[in-house]
């Protein structure tokens, strides 16, 4: 249980860009052997990826609109 709590903190560190290489390996090993933590990390990162894809699409749409406006000007 405490391993899972520690793994959760390491996963958050990874997402915050503060995980060193040794802890990265510890996290990977834990996730390989713990379906619950792997699923949790997958849900959090999956949602982040979905929201980023949406945001990137908005940026692309804005850029297209700006190009169209310049072409019409």
């Amino acid at each position, binding site marked *: 249980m405490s391993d899972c709590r520690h793994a959760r903190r390491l996963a958050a560190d990874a997402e915050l860009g503060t995980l060193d290489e040794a802890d990265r390996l510890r996290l990977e090993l834990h996730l390989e052997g713990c379906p619950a933590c792997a699923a*949790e990390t997958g849900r959090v990162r*999956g*949602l982040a990826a979905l929201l980023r894809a949406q945001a990137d699409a908005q940026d692309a749409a804005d850029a297209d609109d*700006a190009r169209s406006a310049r072409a019409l000007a």
Partner: protein
Amino acid sequence: MAEDRRHDASEAAPLGRAAPSSEVVRRAATGDRAAQEALLVAHLGRIRRRVRRLVGASGEADDLVQQACVELLRSIARYRGDASLELWIDRITTHVVYKFFRTSGRRARRVTVAEDVDRAGPEDAERRLEWREGLDAAGELLDRLRPERRIVFLLVAVEGRSLAETAAMLDLSLPAAKSRYLRARHDVDRLVACTPRLATLLEREEARR
């Protein structure tokens, strides 16, 4: 997220425009209208992009952009140059959006735009429908997060901000920012797990990766 998507410093350059000089900033701070306009023109695209990333295609986005611009001009005299102007403007924008989250209630709901899904989502029509439903559910999920956790999650997850950047954006200590992110992460996991249409979509997308 930050581990694989470090904030791109090149974003500091506004789209197709030269960043205003320190002289323009100084003049804007004294109330020079032409300098203020130049400042806004140079940074409007960045402010708009950041607002859209944090609130999605909400109908409130334009108002928030306007509020951030007003706040920028109101406080430019306090800019001392100890951080980059872009970072300073990002902090102003973040605070405007955070205040919106704290005061808006359900108006903060993200809207899923069909054209965005068409552009970003899979080619297969059935999967695109799943994406759209998933994004709707994600919008509802974000709506249920506490404002202080929602803003931290968005800064990290959508903007790819590091811990240090997130703390700086919100005037938090590093431990406080990390604590908020851990709580946000826990809430997000719990809410996704009890939202079957979203959990299923995320599992399928992960399996495809």
